[in-house]
């Protein structure tokens, strides 16, 4: 099931463009939450860790994989909660007033 390298590259390039485009206009205020959010997303490396540990049969791989899983899941879970806490302050947003001003 391994793909040709160039296809993976194509996917990589598309993802890179997309990453650039999708955040091209962020208010400064959101820089830190966004950084934190992306930090969480690269926690996807946990999938790699699971693949490694899940298929491991020697002790070395198991140990390495285990540590990788611990680290990666700290990244995922911690990253998500930190972001969530940061974003809490954007929760409330007063409704624009409706009355006409004179």
């Amino acid at each position, binding site marked *: 099931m391994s793909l040709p390298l160039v296809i993976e590259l194509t996917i990589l390039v598309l993802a890179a463009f997309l990453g650039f485009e999708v955040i091209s206009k962020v208010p400064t205020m959101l820089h830190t939450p966004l950084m934190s959010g992306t930090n969480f997303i690269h926690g996807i490396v946990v999938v790699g860790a699971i*693949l490694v540990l899940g298929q491991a049969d020697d002790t070395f791989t198991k140990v390495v994989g285990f540590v990788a899983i611990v680290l990666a899941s700290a990244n995922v879970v911690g990253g998500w909660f930190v972001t969530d806490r940061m974003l809490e302050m954007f929760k409330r947003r007063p409704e624009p007033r409706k009355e006409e001003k004179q």
Partner: protein
Amino acid sequence: MISDPNVVDLLYLVSIVCFVLALRFLSSPKHARKGNWLGGAGMIVAIATTLLLEGIGNWLLIVVGAAIGSAVGIVGARRVKMTAMPQMVALFNGVGGGAAALVALAEWHRTASPGGSETVSIVLSALIGSISFAGSLVAFAKLQELVSGRPIVFPGQNVVDAVVLVAAAVFGIAAIDGANGHWVLYGLIAFALLFGVMFVLPIGGADMPVVISLLNAFTGVAASATGFVLHSTVLIVAGMLVGASGTLLTLLMAKAMNRSIANVVFGAFGQVQRGPGAGRADDGRTVRATTAQDVAVQLSFARKVIVVPGYGMAVAQAQHDVRQLADVLEGRGVDVKYAIHPVAGRMPGHMNVLLAEANVPYTQLFEMDEINPEFPQTDVALVIGANDVTNPAARSDPGSPIYGMPILDVDKAASIVVLKRSMRPGFAGIDNELYLDPKTTMLFGDAKDSVLKLISAVKAL
């Protein structure tokens, strides 16, 4: 157990879509939270899919490892104070990089020397992951003040740095060139870790956010490289999304601080340049400069804003623009009032003359005595070119030439934004304590320019 590779890839595609949308939402204040939830959903799909893959064993180890990691993550994220958030981001970023490096190490071990493109990926993943790991931990330590926040420099630093990086590269090339055995990767990782440490040590505390963002992009790239090793599209895409957006974000952050990336990273080697406002009081309190976009968010999400005009507004002839800003904010439901100090400006009624010219209704203008009780319920006090009339020294410092003058209680507002060009004093020629208040941020520049920027920024939200 899912055995159909098409189903697996489809599920991964779902989580890719989630991640893209997550990023999209995260870049707008209104939807940011939704974005994080979507990202979480994508992550769960990806993890669940992986766990259910055919041939995945060692369940106990996986569960225990995940539990430990999650516990650390949750507790860390929950316990930490709001002000310590940046170092938490650094920490979690670092462990992610570490994980990527370890995955690479494991794969290297499994295949000994896989050769070809896979080796390149392993090398990249291990190298970048390790740099990110070590660098992030140093950043964490600096922000947490475990080590000094100041730039740590020593003579010949660049030479040492270069040597370390070259050493890491040599191991990497050796690996790609077919050298096998564990030592190759150990060496690579060791030097990469060293480089990560050395890379961050000389960078000052104020620049940390930019560096963390850069390391964040690194981890993304490392994760993506891991994807090439494991032939996992979800890893490739998600990692690269972070790599690209993280890079752009780093640029944006540096720009918002008026620094170039090179300046941030190599700043300490030369002289660290500071903006006009980056002053530091003797007692350690610093002046915080901000950007129009930040202020725009603050203003737009405020319930009540009090505008405090002063002589600077007159000099900048910004009255029409101030009025427009107030109009825009009112259109968004913000309650805007003007606080007119009796001696703001340089002649009696100076502010009245200008605001009347700009057609601000008299009913929005409030005298000091009327408005002072309202500051404690005010979200943002927007001080436009006023200085002496907001100086708390008038209340507290009998030695000050303005002691005894009643002032506007802007310091009672939840936050204070001051628009002026520099740290220069006003008419009375004295410094203003207000600017060192932790609730105060300074938007430096000509008041007219700044207000125009604020208008655009508010409208763009």
